[in-house]
């Protein structure tokens, strides 16, 4: 037992070293001169989608397949944009308020929707999404109507102690670091919550709501909790982006953007925490890699999605997991001892 714990300790510390290297790499990435400003732009998009998709996964983990997540990003985005333009508040405050508004709306709507399970929950969230988009379109002067809002204020110039003045207006790199920080923060918080008692309760509810409530887990309470947590970070992702791009259009929060998030998630795999991260990076990279194919590029995306649908029911992250024994076998270490004994027995 003690030996096993010792091994686990080594493994964990190795893992921390790997994470440290990864974070150091991400910190240095803007200075490696890979494609310039456009590359930074793609990275910022990837970070935004990683936050949004990981938060969507939290909702999926509790057995709620929401297909209106872009609407909660939209609630964050519109709240933040309206507060910063109409009242002139600094985006640093309004971003947080946007995320909180998304969470409050999620608690209220989650309470209403908590009666509905499975496919009915999916449909009601889809309708919530399109109703939100139509509402923003018909908002007239206040929300900018169909055209959306333009000339939103950026993050401005801030004075950090020790780092000097950081000007968000002149380059994209400060936004890169802001999004990197928010992404890491989101991933850590979501991971901790998922590995806590609440996370276990979510998984129990997803497996069987009846059994879960029979052992004293309040289905309504924990489903609303998952929805609120997911939508808070969804709103966070949504409220930062318009200040970076300085424009906002209602079309970015309708049904198809929501479904895109679900694609990212299912592509990466819902069962694994790394699923959304892998899904977003791969699916965002494909169009960039196959840029030369021009209008034929979506065929590549579709083809790879087809592969995932039929041959990787657990998504791309699931592929890594199931390929692990083979990889270990190939490099001759950590091979499954049970399987070894079994094969020896067969030979005799």
């Amino acid at each position: 037992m003690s030996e096993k714990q010792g091994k686990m300790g080594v493994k964990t510390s190795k893992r921390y070293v790997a994470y440290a290297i990864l974070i150091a790499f991400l910190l240095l990435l803007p200075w490696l001169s890979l494609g310039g400003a456009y590359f930074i732009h793609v990275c910022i998009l990837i970070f935004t989608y990683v936050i949004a998709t990981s938060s969507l996964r939290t909702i999926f983990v509790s057995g709620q397949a929401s297909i209106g997540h872009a609407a909660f990003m939209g609630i964050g985005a519109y709240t933040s944009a309206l507060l910063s333009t109409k009242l002139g508040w600094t985006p640093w405050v309004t971003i947080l308020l946007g995320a909180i508004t998304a969470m409050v709306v999620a608690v209220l709507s989650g309470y209403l929707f908590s009666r509905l399970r499975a496919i009915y929950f999916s449909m009601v969230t889809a309708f919530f999404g399109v109703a939100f988009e139509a509402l923003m379109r018909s908002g007239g002067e206040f929300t900018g109507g169909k055209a959306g809002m333009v000339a939103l204020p950026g993050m401005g110039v801030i004075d950090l102690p020790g780092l000097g003045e950081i000007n968000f207006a002149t380059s994209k790199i400060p936004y890169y670091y802001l999004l990197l920080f928010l992404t890491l923060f989101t991933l850590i918080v979501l991971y901790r919550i998922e590995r806590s008692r609440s996370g276990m309760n979510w998984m129990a509810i997803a497996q069987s709501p009846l059994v879960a409530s029979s052992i004293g887990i309040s289905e309504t309470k924990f489903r609303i909790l998952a929805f609120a947590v997911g939508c808070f970070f969804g709103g966070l992702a949504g409220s930062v982006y318009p200040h970076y791009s300085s424009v906002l259009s209602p079309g970015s929060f309708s049904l198809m953007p929501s479904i895109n998030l679900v694609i990212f998630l299912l592509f990466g795999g819902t069962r694994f925490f790394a699923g959304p991260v892998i899904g977003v990076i791969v699916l965002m990279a494909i169009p960039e890699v196959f840029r030369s194919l021009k209008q034929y590029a979506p065929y590549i995306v579709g083809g790879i999605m087809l592969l995932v649908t039929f041959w990787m029911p657990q998504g791309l992250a699931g592929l890594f997991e199931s390929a692990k024994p083979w990889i270990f076998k190939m490099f001759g270490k950590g091979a499954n001892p049970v399987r070894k004994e079994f094969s020896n027995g067969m030979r005799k």
Partner: protein
Amino acid sequence: MEIFTQTVVNGIVLSSIYILVALGFALIFSVMQILNFAHGTIYMAGAYVCYYLASSFGLPPWAAILISAVVLALFGVFLERFGFRYLENDFNRTLMFSLVIIVFLQTTADITVGPYVKRVPSVLHGVTTVAGITLSKERLITCVITVCLLLAVTFLIRKTALGRQMLAVAQDGDAASLQGINVHRVAAFALGLSSALAAVAGGLMGSIIMLNTYMGDAMLLRAITLVIIAGIGSLGGLFVSGLIVGFVDAVLPIFIGGSGSAVVAFSFAILILVIRPQGLFGHEI
């Protein structure tokens, strides 16, 4: 008076096309237990095939609509045989697969026909005067065709052996297969039939509105709205909910604009789902 009658005619045209699309969506949902998000895109593909046949080969519109219905029906059967059959009604995987269909069809439509403004030629041109009221012939013929089709499909489902098999599979797939019904074949037929209906709806709608590759999204939402208001498993209820939503879409934009009427229709659907998930005419879920 002129505006009033035209609004009524528009309402009936919209309702009948909505019902045509929603009937297919509901059929797939009851028989195969999947939410086919690609249904709206198949409707779009129907309109594009129609446009392509009419503009490139100079076919008369009615022949183009007929051929596009046959093409899309075969496509639907193909999708069941080589796609949905292997996905075992798993929500995540069928959702993925229908999104793959959307990607492929939209990209193909963009590449082959292109994004410029286009319209399917209508079956009949000109106007006619009935009891002193001027009506456009294309709207009237659209109504007539869709009503005939709806009657034919209702007859097919309620009275023929194949239709009864579909109803049996919709009630309980396992029990149906114990009775010797080939569930997969019935599912393939249902998907083919619903795709053909969507294609006809696309061809007819294509002569009323301008085509674009995203026209399926709005129609998909309308189809889901209809199914929710009617209640899943209620084919008769679709006609009532179709008339409600069709008239909402024909009347409200005059007063509060297109997006405003969308807010009303979608909020109504949310309300129905929250208060009465089985719909107005559906059975308990």
